[in-house]
């Protein structure tokens, strides 16, 4: 496929403008991982079932494996690498997942963290039913989900506390904190790949 047309695209990823030259068929998940080196976004099923590749597109969670990179040229993307503050302080959602033992192998975790970050941005105090509905599109084969549900409740508490204390900078990021993208496994304990 050496003759495939390549497109120059520009994405604002975690607050940083990134350029890439991609064929039209390059999935956003592969663009992030291969072209931009952001391997924190994991690729599981590649047909939209597992939720591991979930990233935020203009603040809303989407499947990066069901999105062509060229389609979202010019848009803002937040990946797992962009959830923590620039100094490495974990976001409320990341802290809650670590504290609540909401991950074991860590493969599904980037997708869960992006999904839950957006869920709590939209609905800061979700009911248990809303939590279940919110994470229903993400599969985890380790935890049995109970600790993930606890972590979402805990993240809601932490965000509310931060809100009260006026330390809003560590609240869930809407469109990604600025700063240089870091390597994968932003949540302590995740095994990355």
């Amino acid at each position: 496929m050496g003759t495939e047309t390549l497109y120059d695209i520009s994405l604002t990823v975690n607050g940083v403008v990134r350029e890439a030259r991609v064929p039209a068929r390059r999935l956003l998940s592969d663009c992030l991982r291969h072209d931009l080196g952001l391997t924190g976004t994991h690729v599981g099923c590649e047909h939209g079932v597992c939720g591991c590749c979930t990233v935020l597109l203009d603040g809303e969670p989407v499947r990066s494996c069901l999105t062509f990179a060229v389609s979202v040229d010019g848009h803002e993307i937040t990946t797992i690498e962009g959830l923590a503050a620039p100094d490495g302080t974990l976001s409320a959602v990341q802290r809650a997942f670590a504290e609540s033992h909401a991950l074991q192998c860590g493969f599904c975790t980037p997708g869960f963290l992006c999904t839950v970050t957006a869920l709590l941005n939209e609905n800061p105090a979700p009911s248990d039913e809303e939590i279940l509905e919110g994470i229903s599109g993400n599969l985890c084969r380790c935890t049995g989900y109970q600790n993930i549900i606890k972590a979402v409740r805990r993240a809601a508490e932490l965000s509310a506390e931060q809100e009260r204390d006026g330390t809003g900078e560590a609240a869930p990021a809407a469109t990604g904190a600025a700063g240089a993208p870091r390597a994968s496994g932003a949540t302590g304990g995740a095994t990355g790949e």
Partner: protein
Amino acid sequence: MKPPPFDYHAPRTVGEALEVLADAGPEGKVLAGGQSLIPLMNMRLAAPARLVDINRIGALDTVTADARGVRVGALARHATVERSAAVAERQPLLRQALRHVAHPVIRNRGTVVGSIVHADPAAELPAVLALLGGTVRLARHGAPEREVPAAEFFLGPLESALQPGELAVSAFFPALPPGSGTAFCEIARRHGDFALAGVAALVTLDDDLRITTAKVACIGVGPVPVVVDVSAECARRPAASAASPAVAAAVRDRVEPEDDIHATAEYRRHLTGVLAERALRLAAERASHG
């Protein structure tokens, strides 16, 4: 699990899109939300030679609701329609059905018109359009737009009346008539998966709260959504008796389920009867409280 190569077009206006589609003919395929098309491409079940990405055509990202009904443009995402209070007020069945469409994250990207054009017999929105007697507006380069009624739009599994060179620009869902209620019930093995069977119901009552019309549309149990008018079986009975064994039997008789790995045809037929009763009961309740 990577899509095959294709020629990519990203028009910025409907006119430009129609020109490209006219030129592409049967080789052209429209990309909107991509939540059905891209999985098919990733699995190499679909390999369109030319992809026309309509995501930059802002003019198609519209949802309007008035006394006549709800018109949804080709780029309106499921989530937008689901969250719209104006839509829920004019035609509550849309929100009721959309809550069953995949998962919230998929609904952020997938489009209502895309789901209709995809014409999956297990999908919710084709049944909603069929039950309500809605229409799909199709545009073509150099020709007037045509408005195709739902009854003529769904031809078979994944097959619609959309011709090569055409773009579905919007779908129209008629408003809920006065004294009416709707409901959508389905059963899936796993939350968010395609349903084994599902039923959308519409019940209209007269001033004495007796049933004047009762209709259901069934999914997953035929090549296209199966619309069954059970007004005769309900025969001006009070709203509270919308669901009955006779109604369930009438619906079961009309569907044509098939066996597959997920369920037998008989089980699907049974489920459809049960779901028809549930959906009709709920729709009648909502109609009487409306």
